[in-house]
């Protein structure tokens, strides 16, 4: 078993009172708070680089894979409990699964395997109720060597969608052959209305046999290298992004933490998250030190697609919430090439891909999409200026991710007392859930299920002196 997860430190939030009286953040005070958080982000760069090396170093951006030894990867997943931070300053009790001896994390690890692998998952349960895992989209899953079947009690009532790891120390071993590539989900099949919502879920990515062709070094989502149009994507370290959408009802979490009952008729999400974080935490790096239990960022970090950088980037969408969620990327539509772990093709191989600027994933659904950003107009301050007179900072309100200049790779003067987050005039272009009442964190607007695409100038970012 090889994991690229560094050691995480227990969040000392465990000692914190879980405060259901949320701090009211008036809009006038919210942005300074975010500015402070982002200053931390800049300071973090050094801390990130000092992170102890893991077997496989994760990139600061892009999907973080937990991998095993192909063709027989084995993952030991143990339940943990802990707290996550939300953008309104709250901390929320959650359950999770962690690989090996790792501490609590949310969401559970992104398991990446290769097509044809025989995947083994050993589930250890320390919780006080039975749990299980199901693997939608995988066939012939075994539990302790026997075909997985739904579980019924003596009275014939359905108790679990799969054999369980019994409460208080039980274990079960699941195995299956990852027979086809795609993006999948694994989640609890026992009392899922509680257990999935408490965090017993994660992403499962199956890479096609042709994905890592040692000769070509080319990367695909599906086995379509020979087709007229393919799933090949740009495999820069941050060229593959996970958008795992979930929701949290803090009252459910509170009831579970206190060992109280919870009437699911009262279930009412107050937080919507991407990769277990809410914006602006979503754009913090993977394994940001101030998000010790929320390791996965959601920043899409790219360069413009052009003749020297021709391949599009890859975005994998998963919805583990209980309602359809529309996700809207600005400026970079999702060209959907896979749905629920199947290439979007007809029986004769024809391409049935579709392009969306509002991609709606239903509960449990996954999409694989290609995206890019093209410097279409090629605006240049000297040779091709924007066709307006820039009113400048005295006449406009500048956002903190604006560089002060309309031009990619340039920065401009900023209002006194305000500084830009831009390092080298890179662009920050947002992507977010467009059911906008969900783009909030229990009342704090413009937080939650949103992230950025960061577009660096061609060749990459060299910070301004």
């Amino acid at each position, binding site marked *: 078993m090889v994991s690229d997860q560094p050691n995480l430190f227990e969040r000392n939030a465990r000692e914190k009172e879980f405060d259901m009286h949320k701090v009211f953040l008036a809009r006038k005070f919210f942005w300074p708070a975010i500015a402070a958080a982002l200053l931390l982000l800049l300071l973090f760069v050094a801390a990130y680089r000092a992170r102890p090396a893991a077997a496989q170093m994760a990139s600061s951006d892009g999907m973080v894979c937990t991998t095993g030894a192909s063709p027989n990867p084995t993952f030991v997943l143990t339940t943990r409990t802990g707290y996550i931070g939300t953008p309104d300053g709250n901390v929320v009790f959650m359950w999770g699964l962690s690989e090996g001896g790792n501490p609590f994390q949310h969401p559970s690890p992104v398991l990446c395997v290769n097509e044809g692998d025989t995947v083994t998952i050993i589930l250890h349960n320390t919780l006080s109720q039975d749990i299980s895992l199901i693997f939608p989209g995988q066939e012939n899953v075994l539990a302790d060597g026997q075909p997985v079947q739904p579980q019924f009690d003596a009275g014939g009532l359905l108790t679990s969608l799969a054999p369980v790891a019994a409460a208080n120390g039980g274990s079960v071993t699941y195995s299956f052959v990852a027979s086809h590539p795609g993006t999948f989900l694994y989640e609890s099949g026992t009392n899922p209305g509680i257990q999935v919502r408490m965090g017993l879920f994660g992403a499962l990515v199956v890479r096609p046999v042709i994905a890592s062709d040692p000769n070509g070094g080319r990367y695909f989502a599906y086995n379509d290298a020979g087709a*007229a*149009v393919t799933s090949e994507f740009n495999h820069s370290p941050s060229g593959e992004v996970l958008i795992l959408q979930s929701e949290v009802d803090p009252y459910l979490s509170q009831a579970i933490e206190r060992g109280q009952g919870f009437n699911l008729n009262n279930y*009412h*999400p107050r937080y919507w998250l991407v990769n277990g974080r809410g914006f602006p935490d979503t754009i913090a790096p993977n394994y940001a030190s101030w998000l010790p239990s929320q390791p996965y960022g959601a920043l899409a970090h790219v360069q413009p697609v052009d003749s020297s950088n021709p391949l599009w980037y890859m975005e994998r969408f998963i919805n583990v919430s209980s309602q*359809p969620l*529309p996700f*809207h990327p*600005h*400026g*970079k*539509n999702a060209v959907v090439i896979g749905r629920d772990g199947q290439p979007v093709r007809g029986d004769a191989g*024809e*391409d*049935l*891909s*579709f*392009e*969306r*600027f*509002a991609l*709606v994933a239903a509960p449990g659904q996954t999409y694989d999409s290609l995206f890019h*950003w*093209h*410097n*279409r*107009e090629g*605006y240049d301050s000297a040779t*091709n*200026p*924007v*066709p*307006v*007179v820039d*009113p400048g900072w005295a*006449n*406009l*309100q*500048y*956002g*903190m*991710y*604006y560089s002060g200049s*309309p031009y*990619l790779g340039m920065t401009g003067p900023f209002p006194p007392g305000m500084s830009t987050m831009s390092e080298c005039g890179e*662009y*920050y*272009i*947002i992507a977010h859930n*467009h*059911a*906008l*009442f*969900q*783009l*909030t964190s*229990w*009342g704090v*607007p*413009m937080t939650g299920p949103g992230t*950025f695409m960061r577009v660096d100038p061609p060749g990459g970012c060299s910070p301004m002196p």
Partner: protein
Amino acid sequence: MTKTVTPRRISRRDFLKIGGGVLLATAGAKLLPAFMRRGIELVDVASAQTAPPDLFFAGTDGWIYLPPTPAIPPYHPDTLAPAPFTTYIFGFRNVLGLTPTQIANQKMKAQHTAPLFWARQEVEFRLKLTNLGLQMRPDLTDAHTVHWHGFRDAIPYFDGEPHGSVAVPMGKEFTYVYRPHDPGTYMFHCHVEDVEHVHMGMAGLVFVRPQQDGNTALYPSGKYAYNDGDGSTGFDREFAMMLTEVWAEAHWDDAHIQLPEWSDYRADFALLNGRVYPDTLAPNGSIDPFNPITDANGDLVPTPGYEHLQYQPLSSLVQCNAGERVLLRFASLGFTQSVMTLTGIKMRVVGEDATPKRGRDGTDTSYWTDSLSIYPGASYDAIFTAPPYQGPAPYDTYLLYNRSYRHSNNLEAGGFGGQMTEVRVFPPGTLPPQTIPNT
């Protein structure tokens, strides 16, 4: 654009209307946007930067009308609303051609939905925005932006997302420049405090006409949704169907200096082009974005008998002759799902999110349906052929409505309302050709 061109009266758009791409290299070259002129002549940078806008929006607040009964005390109708209005909004107004005094007069005179407009593929479009402030909320100094939702490869400067870009404070102006390369149906909205500003009404529909327009060989009208190459998206009439919602409590909160808890969101009213049925059938006010009609103060002129719809000028009534092809352009900036159902007539979905229904290898993926599930932020282009006229009434009536029944009534149990309108099919030749969408 050179200084010899008379502002507004000969726009680039009008010029291209004359005859498609062939004329581009002739005397009109200087009229073309810089990106099309490259290679023809040097760009006149200074004049390009000061060219007049094609459209001019003002962001402000205002009041609109929704059926006052049944009431939702204390939120609806809002007791602060001047008669005949019921509901506080933020919104845009089209102030193209108005004097500075007239523009200033439009504070507190926002409309919903925001003015419908359109651009042409490969023709630069300049949208100027000013911010008049919020009369009911002197404590709020919110900036505004225009975010053209779905515009591919937008640079942050013209994207209107305020964190990565610039926003327009009160009393200031900014011009967004769009060079549309992709025909189809889009939407736009203010992106400042976006859950609030979008929900309060700063949302509208915009579409891009394809370069194929004017080619009568593929379809007699020469009007198309996309550059289809085969006339499959040709149409005779087009109707924008902008879907928004009103949560009465949130609107009341903004008028009464309160904040709603957004995760408690509910759609009390579901609106079609800013109105609920049967107001959706009422006549248009001033809806031609390029030739707005106002009174001497610059205000919208109410249609006699429809004074309550003064700030909701866009009609959803679909009228057509039997046998004609009708394009419905749907876009949603509500926060919940709509399922728009057309009774008795099948629609062909030819576009989604400003993309023709074709695979990357050209495979036709368009489809027939009578119900379209539309989520927030999505758009669809659907074409139907008006069935034969049956009579004996002057027209046959078909209903277009949201099958989520909660959204096709006005809170009245058993009553019809909300996102609902009528398609009226007349005998062939009854209606003259359409000149403006939604007419």
